[in-house]
C-alpha cells in the first residue's frame, strides 16, 4: 500500500509537448484545445488533435483539471509552476520515501502512512476525553 501511495505522490513522467502545454497553462491560467494549439502547436507544425491529446494526457495524469463549457473542454493547471518545480526536484533525488529510508528526511507526519479518517476521528475523541478528564479532576 505504501508503495502505491508513494507512487501516487510522485509526479508522472511529462513529455516535451506536455511540458510546453503546461507552460502555456501556467501563463494563461486556463485554455482550450484551439488556444493551446495556436500558442504551442502551430510553430511545431502539429495538429490541434495532437495538442488536444497532450491536454487529455495531462488531465489523466492529474496535472490539469477541466470543465466542459459548451462543447469544448477548458483546462486549468492543478499545480503552480513553483509547486511543479519543487516536486520535480524532490523526485529527481528519489522522492520523499527514499530520503526517509536513508535517514536524510524526518517528516512531521509520515508522508505515506495509511491512517484513515475514522481512525483520526477516534484519536481526536481520545484527546477530547483526556482533556475532559483533566479538567474534571
Amino acid at each position, binding site marked *: 500500500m505504501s508503495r502505491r501511495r508513494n507512487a501516487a505522490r510522485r509526479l508522472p513522467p511529462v513529455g516535451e509537448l506536455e511540458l510546453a502545454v503546461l507552460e502555456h497553462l501556467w501563463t494563461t491560467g486556463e485554455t482550450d484545445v484551439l488556444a493551446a494549439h495556436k500558442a504551442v502547436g502551430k510553430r511545431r507544425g502539429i495538429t490541434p488533435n495532437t495538442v488536444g491529446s497532450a491536454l487529455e494526457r495531462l488531465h489523466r495524469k492529474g496535472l490539469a483539471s477541466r470543465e466542459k463549457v459548451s462543447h469544448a473542454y477548458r483546462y486549468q493547471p492543478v499545480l503552480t509552476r513553483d*509547486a511543479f518545480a519543487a516536486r520535480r*526536484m524532490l523526485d529527481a533525488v528519489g522522492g520523499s520515501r527514499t530520503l526517509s529510508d536513508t535517514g*536524510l528526511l524526518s*517528516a512531521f*507526519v509520515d508522508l505515506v*502512512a495509511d491512517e484513515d*479518517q475514522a*481512525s483520526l476521528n477516534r*484519536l*481526536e475523541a481520545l484527546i477530547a476525553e483526556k482533556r475532559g478528564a483533566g479538567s474534571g479532576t
Partner: protein
Amino acid sequence: MTLVILCVAAFAVISYAASGAVALGLRSLRHRTDRTAPAARARLYLVAALLPFLSALAILTAALAPTFGWIADHCGVLGDPHPHPHICVEHHVAVWPAIWLTTLAFAMALRFSLAVTRLGYAVILGRLTQHRLRDASHPGNELDIRVLPLDEPQAFVLGIFRPQLYITRGLAEGAQRRHLPAVVAHERGHVQRRDPLRRVLAGIGLAFHLPGVAGRIAAQLTRAQEMAADLAAAQSIGSRESVARALIALAKARVPPPRGAFAFSGSELESRVVQLMDETQRRDWPTTSTLLCGGLASLMLLASGAEGVHHGVELLLGALGS
C-alpha cells in the same frame, strides 16, 4: 590472505552473535523500555544498532593485540603444531579456513562495502537534495526555516550534518497555519537532537545485524526519535495537546477520502498521540554519559583481558572448523 579471511570471519561471527544477543535483550527488556522516556529509548536503540559493529571491532582489536605487539603471544606456551588457527602475523600458519568460514568472510566483506557505499550515497544524496531544494524554496519568516511552494501542509528536516528545516506554503499560509508552532518545534527538536545523523549512523551499524533484527531496531529507533521530538515540541510550546492536535490535523490533510476500514491499533500516529496525552513521568535513563561510561568500562575490561580474548577468538575459530 588467510589471516585476513580469519579476521573477517571472526568479525562476522562476533557481530552476528552480538546481534542475536541484542535481539534477545531488547525482547526481554521490552516492557521496561516501554516505561522509559522516548529520548532514552532512542539512545538505547542507537546503541543496539551499533553494538554488533562496535563489539566485533573491539573484540577483534583485542584479539589482534599480539600482532600489534601490545602483548606477548601464547604460541611459545602451546608449542607447535598449534592446536587451533593463529591470528598472529608472527606465528601465522597459512592453512585455508573451512569453506563456510571463507564464505562468511566474503559475505561480511560485501556487507561492509555496502555499508560504506550506503554512507557515501546518503552524504551525496543529502547534499544534492539540499542544493536542489534550496533553489526551489525561499526563506521563511524565521532564519532557520525555508518555505517550499507546495500546497499540502507538511514539514520536514533534511540533511545529515547541518539539517535544514523546510515547511510547505500549504502549512505556512493554509488552514493548518495555527499548528505551525507545534510542527516547527517538533522539527527543531529533531535538529537539536541530531536525529538525522543518528539515523544514518544507525543505518550503517544495522548492516552488521542478523537479517530480521535490523528492520525491527530501525523501526523502533525512528518511532522513539519521533516521540522524543514530540515531547520536545510539547515542552517548547508548553502544550502536549497542541502537538497531538497538530499531528492529527496534518495527517487528516494528507489522507485521501475514506476507502474503507484500515487497521487502527499499533499505528505510529496513534502511539504518538497516546504518548502525548499520557502525562506519566518516564525515567530518562540511560543517559548519554552512562552509556559512554559503560562503553569505556567494557573497552578497559577487554584491554585488560586481551590475552584471554586473543586465545578465546582462536579457540572459537578452531571450534567453528577452520
